[in-house]
């Protein structure tokens, strides 16, 4: 089976000279749940815009399930569903009509479009709001409606650009479950997000784009495997005024009742608790100081900036 997405030597130079993409190569296999990460202005939205035909490329090739964007744009567009970052609705139309119209743009007859719209609106808990004008929906509802709209033509590749931005935890979790289920049914998903926890818990593979280039393209597991240290925050039962010396663990005070412990991968949590117990320190709770992927991401971006400064 051809890859869901194959991007080759993709370049985008905007009028004014800004080069947003500098020869991007990227492959996403069919059935993958793929994360595309990068800092603001890295070129993520430009890349997605080109794939979805919202931005014209300067040069390079885009193929979706084997269809070339230049040779057969209609086939490429039929394969893709896009959930953009910004709301892009006619705010005066009822929610149901937005979804039915979108199906019509893909050539799905109105009767069938209504059936599909009902299916996706129900799945995303929006059916009761089908007659409500878009402007009267909450931010979370609009986000879910954009997913229903992108799915109504049943695309093989779903691209989501920051789909959970600004939605509360509960809705975010339900959207994650929905997307996982969709991926399990065979839809390839590409996700950009600023919530790195989202990428870590949903995606199998990842590309990090920085300054218009792919800085890394690997599996989430392989990327996390590169972490050498992790930092935990411990809430203590009593007060600790002087830090004990624990071999292999680096302790820092946050306050008298809270410690930070940095440990490398050779040590275990059991070993940490044993050492703390020996020193009479009791722990009430423990949590990761920082999302693991976030830490790797920041390290990578910092390294790229350092390389760029070195080169110049």
């Amino acid at each position, binding site marked *: 089976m051809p890859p869901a997405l194959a991007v080759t030597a993709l370049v985008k130079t*905007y009028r004014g000279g800004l080069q947003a993409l500098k020869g991007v190569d990227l492959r996403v296999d069919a059935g993958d749940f793929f994360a595309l990460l990068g800092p603001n202005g890295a070129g993520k939205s430009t890349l997605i*815009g080109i794939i*979805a*035909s*919202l*931005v*014209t490329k300067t040069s390079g090739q885009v193929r979706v399930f084997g*269809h070339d964007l230049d040779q*057969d*744009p*209609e*086939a490429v*567009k*039929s394969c*893709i569903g*896009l959930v*953009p970052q*910004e*709301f*892009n*609705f*006619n*705010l005066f139309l009822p929610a149901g009509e937005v979804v039915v*119209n*979108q199906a*019509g*743009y*893909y*050539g*799905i*007859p*109105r009767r069938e479009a209504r059936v599909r719209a009902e299916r996706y609106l129900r799945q995303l808990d929006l059916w009761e709001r089908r007659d409500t004008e878009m402007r009267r929906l909450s931010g979370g509802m609009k986000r879910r409606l954009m997913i229903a*709209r992108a799915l109504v*033509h049943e695309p093989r590749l779903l691209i989501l650009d920051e789909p959970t931005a600004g939605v509360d935890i509960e809705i975010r979790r339900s959207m994650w479950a929905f997307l996982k289920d969709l991926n399990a049914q065979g839809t390839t998903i590409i996700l950009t997000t600023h919530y790195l926890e989202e990428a870590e818990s949903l995606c199998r593979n990842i590309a990090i784009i920085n300054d218009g280039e792919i800085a890394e393209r690997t599996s989430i597991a392989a990327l996390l495997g590169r972490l050498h240290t992790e930092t935990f925050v411990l809430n203590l039962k009593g007060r600790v005024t002087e830090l004990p010396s624990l071999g292999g663990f680096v302790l820092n005070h946050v306050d008298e009742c809270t410690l930070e412990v940095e440990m490398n991968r050779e040590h275990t949590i059991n070993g940490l608790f044993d050492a703390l117990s020996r020193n009479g320190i009791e722990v009430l709770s423990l949590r990761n100081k920082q999302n693991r992927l976030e830490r790797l991401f920041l390290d990578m971006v910092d390294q790229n900036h350092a390389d760029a400064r070195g080169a110049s």
Partner: protein
Amino acid sequence: MTRGPGTWRRYWVTFATIFGKEFRRFTRIWVQTVLPSVITTTLYFLIFGELIGGRIGPMGGLPYLDFIVPGLVLMAVITNAYSNVVSSFYSSKFSRYVEELLVSPAPNWVILAGYVAGGVARGLTVGATVMLVAMMFTRIEIHSPAVTLLVLCMTAVLFSLGGFINAIYANSFDDISIVPTFVLTPLTYLGGVFYSIDLLPGFWQAVSLANPVLYMVNGFRYGLHGVTDIPLGWAFGIILAFIIGLSWFSLSLLRRGVGIKS
């Protein structure tokens, strides 16, 4: 993607969806879209036709009220076809829901046809309503229904295309009122709506011949009354040439993504 019968059916559904959306839009807000033209032309009929017209005397061999009916109907068609497309397409750009169409496999010509059909529908709806109003002031016997309908449709198509091009280039809501105010209105008023070009001195007659609205008004006047300042073949030829030119230009703008893609 190979083009089989399924493809053409898909194109038809897409066209019908765009047209349906446009039709529902202007009929839902009929107080803003249909009623103003009806009120304005009723005032024209009342003031220029009934009150002043009686003192002006016949024009082009017709009572003055009968003479201005075709021009006023056509003026309503022109204004409404143009403003329907320019406001609808520009709003879709402004609120970015034009992206719903751009990401879909709808070919550019289907998108253009859908919007133009919406403009034509509003133009003809308002034109027909104005015609009904005119019938309250004078008796209208249509000389050639085929010519009347053809000129109306072609005019609506032409100005819908004009509205589309205006919307493509517009960067603000101010930009969509500049062309109607500074181009469309003068062209319409100087296009022989209220007078025969025979009244003009030779030089201004020649200048008037460069005004495309003149051909439409006279073509329509022929359709209604069998009277025209311009040979009918010329009128159709000029309108058709403008339609072909503006269609080609609109499709070229869509293909290049001018104003809608970065």
